[in-house]
């Protein structure tokens, strides 16, 4: 039946070092996320629209207001406002390095694809490691960077920051977490 649990190779409920219970902090009532969402939406609208007469800009203001009212608290949580501009600048500085790494990764996978004895070169394996990043956004950037770079795919990130990664060969899995974690940690200032 469908109820039978499949034998997973990953332990999904790994809550090993159990954190002491902290009551959830109520979200601060701050208008900043809404203002931020409105501004981003307005800029995006101007790029999309390409018409700068009064009528279309008024439509853009109405549309941005609708989006802000329905999903204004999605882009940013109120707690994470502190240190925001610096984080953005550091993220922009991180992107070129990431692009270079992606290019190298693609060359690596490309060599595997066109290699005639490909089956001997690859050696797929699962790797587990614990990250020291504490910020959710940083973990997200780290996970997606892992997926985009040499021969590795993020399979699962547990709540406590335990990463499960599928690596295509031995060499590509060894570098983790390594330099990338330091660079991602530098974005959020850890």
């Amino acid at each position, binding site marked *: 039946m469908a109820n039978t649990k499949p034998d*997973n190779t990953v332990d999904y409920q790994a809550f090993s070092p159990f954190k002491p219970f902290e009551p959830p902090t109520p979200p601060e009532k701050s208008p900043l996320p809404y203002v931020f969402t409105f501004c981003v939406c307005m800029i995006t609208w101007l*790029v999309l629209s*390409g018409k700068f007469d009064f009528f279309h800009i008024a439509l853009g203001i109405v549309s941005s207001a609708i989006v802000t009212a329905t999903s204004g608290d999605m882009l940013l949580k109120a707690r994470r406002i502190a240190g925001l501009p610096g984080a953005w600048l550091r993220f922009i500085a991180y992107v070129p390095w990431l692009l270079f790494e992606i290019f190298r990764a693609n060359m690596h996978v490309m060599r595997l*694809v066109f290699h005639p004895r490909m089956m001997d070169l*690859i050696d797929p394996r699962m790797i587990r490691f614990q990250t020291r990043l504490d910020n959710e956004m940083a973990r997200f950037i780290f996970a*997606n960077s892992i997926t*985009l770079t040499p*021969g590795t795919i993020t399979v699962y990130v547990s709540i406590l920051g335990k990463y499960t990664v599928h690596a295509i060969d031995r060499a590509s899995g060894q570098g983790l977490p390594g330099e990338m974690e330091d660079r991602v940690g530098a974005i959020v200032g850890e």
Partner: protein
Amino acid sequence: MSVLDIVATAMIAMGLFFFLGGAIGILRFPDFYSRLHPAGKLDTMGQFAAMIGMAIYLLNDLSLGSVLTALKILLIVVFVFITSPTATHAIVDAGVRAGLAPWTKESREGRR
């Protein structure tokens, strides 16, 4: 042909090369997990290169409309860079949860 045309052609050719690698990789690799590597990385890179090439080609005539269209293409690129790793992650997570056994070197040598 201007310089921008040559750069755009080179970028599009690179993108097509990556796309070709991705398609062949999806065919050649032995199991589901390793097939995701070319599908997740090479396709993203191919899309990135080809779209940047086309955006560069659009900058040949510097009018407001063409610049905005190039910006829209850049918006697609940003979108792809956020969504493509997530789609790859969703597929591989589904595979693990469904209980698909990964192909390893030991399993192949054990079969010999």
